[in-house]
């Protein structure tokens, strides 16, 4: 299935867009998506951390992604 991944900060710079349309198999877990992205975009591996948010919440590693989820990569936050 196709998902859109929202990108911010350094992850947007690395991937080169603020939204990535990405193909994943049905029932893909968050950690698998992250592994795939890190292999497609190796510079993601240099970051202190990359988390995945699903529907405006931090996700669990084994959370299964659905086509209508709002998915975002969360590089190390630095607000304040």
């Amino acid at each position, binding site marked *: 299935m196709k998902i859109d991944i*929202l990108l*911010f*900060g*350094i992850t947007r*710079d690395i991937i080169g867009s603020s939204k990535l349309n990405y193909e994943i198999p049905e029932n893909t877990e968050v950690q698998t998506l992250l592994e795939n992205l890190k292999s497609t975009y190796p510079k993601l591996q*240099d*970051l*202190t951390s990359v988390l995945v*948010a699903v529907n*405006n*919440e*931090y996700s669990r590693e084994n959370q299964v992604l659905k086509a209508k989820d709002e998915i*975002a990569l*969360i*590089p*190390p*936050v*630095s*607000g*304040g």
Partner: protein
Amino acid sequence: MIKLKLNKLPINVNEVLASVSSTEAGAIDIFVGSVRSKTANKQVVRLEYEAYDAMAMREMEKIAEEAMEKWPVHKIAIHHRKGILEVSDIAVVVAVSTSHRQESFEACKFIIDSLKQRVPIWKKEVFNDGEEWVSAHA
């Protein structure tokens, strides 16, 4: 009561103060975070803040709710600015009103510490000779 703001407008501390004032609350602690002129001895030209707006608002709300569960708090306000900020511009203000002062300090500190750990907001430091997303790399 929780008041949250996340936008590009300058933050007015008196407005934040007014939003947490209450005749029952004798103590208000306000934390103000502003743009420093130097980071690790490099001169900062400006900062660029961006946010994942919907999630950032949601996380700020959760943090404020957690603070209200932990301490007897009257009101909480969190204003975070985004966009381009110059040196000494205010980036964030957290204000907490309580009946007694100890709780205002503890809750305010908890909120700004949690905000810096969890709320999806990012800042890029722009120097004369380059730029850098803060904390992105170890």
